[in-house]
């Protein structure tokens, strides 16, 4: 009896914790999907990533599981849920329209960490894609990290790690890296240590990556390249990102409350706490 009660509770809460579209005739034209394959991964490192979206409310953290796919020439870092979004987008792009259930499946994938970072390991360049309203992309030289090796050891994911510190984007970071894995890569844009970074956090603990798994599954390292992706400079991207957080209502359409009042007037600035302050 207890089992059935728990089961029913689980089913009810599952249905309630999802987006639903309550319009029976709903169908919408699908967006195009295009991607370019760059490489395949030799191994994939999964990081638990906790971050503070609002510096004024440090107790509220968002969490994501991100994957660093490392290939011979390229590596890619993004939220694992982004891979599911891409997979569904690719599937739907082959249909003319999608119905409410298919749209819900897409809406219910909550990508907590939006950026996608593709590193060209030999040319020392990277491509950054971020979603503001639509996807924006910029290209830059791989940042040079002036690491300082420190005393101290720690075991992360069964690997003995050494400590290093660095200043980047207006924040100070502590990294734990292992020479047990022959890669000088790391989460986000970080790299340049004599080993793979398994844990990394800033001194205010607003951004914290910790490795939780490694596998050798061969996955394609690709990047979406639809025509609608806006290619800008890094400076322009930061400007648009800041403007978006200051006035999100300008970027979005209109929505209405159940009493018929427009929601757009209630739109207030969004908290802005980027990983790169400078």
């Amino acid at each position, binding site marked *: 009896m207890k089992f059935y009660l728990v089961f029913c509770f689980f089913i009810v809460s599952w249905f*309630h*914790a*999802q*987006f*639903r*579209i*309550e*319009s*029976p*005739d*709903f169908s*919408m*034209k*699908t*967006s195009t999907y295009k991607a370019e394959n760059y490489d395949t991964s030799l191994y994939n490192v999964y990081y638990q990533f906790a971050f503070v979206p609002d510096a004024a409310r440090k107790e509220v953290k968002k969490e994501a599981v991100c994957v660093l796919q490392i290939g011979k020439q390229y590596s890619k870092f993004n939220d694992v849920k982004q891979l599911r979004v891409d997979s569904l987008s690719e599937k*739907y792009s082959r249909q003319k329209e*999608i119905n409410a259930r298919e*749209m819900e499946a*897409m*809406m219910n994938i909550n990508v907590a960490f939006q950026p996608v970072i593709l590193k060209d390991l030999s040319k020392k360049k990277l491509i950054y894609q971020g*979603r503001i*309203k*639509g996807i924006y992309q910029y290209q830059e030289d791989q940042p040079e990290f002036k690491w300082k090796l420190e005393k101290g050891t720690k075991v992360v994911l069964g690997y003995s790690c050494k400590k290093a510190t660095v200043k980047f984007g207006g924040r100070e970071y502590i990294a734990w890296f292992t020479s047990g894995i022959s890669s000088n890569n790391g989460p986000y844009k970080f790299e340049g240590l004599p080993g793979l970074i398994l844990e990394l956090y800033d001194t205010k603990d607003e951004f914290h990556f910790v490795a939780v798994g490694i596998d050798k599954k061969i996955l394609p390292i690709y990047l979406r390249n639809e025509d*609608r992706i806006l290619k800008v400079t890094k400076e322009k991207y930061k400007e648009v990102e800041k403007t978006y957080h200051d006035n*999100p209502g300008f970027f*979005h*359409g*209109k*929505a*209405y*409350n*159940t009493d018929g009042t427009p*929601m757009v007037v*209630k*739109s207030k600035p969004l908290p802005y706490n980027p990983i790169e302050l400078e």
Partner: protein
Amino acid sequence: MKKMFFIAALAVAGMVSANTTEIKKDGNAENAKEKTILVESKNQKGVTQTLKVTFKPYNWVTIVTPCGEVFYLDYNDYSTTDAFWDDVHHFAAIKCS
């Protein structure tokens, strides 16, 4: 006897749910109709003009957020799924914050 009650209950439930669906579909069809009316107006020189006014139809999509809050988007504002997805997440974040 029990079986009879069970079958009757099923039939009633079926009819009720079928009616509800039908009402919703009618509502949607009504929304999709474009309405044009003629309006007479006088300009500053006192000349009467007949103007054709077309009302843009609303086609409401009801979104129920994971926190249970409800809001509506106008289907006509979106041409593809990407922009719709962006707005759903944006307004849901406001509703549920």
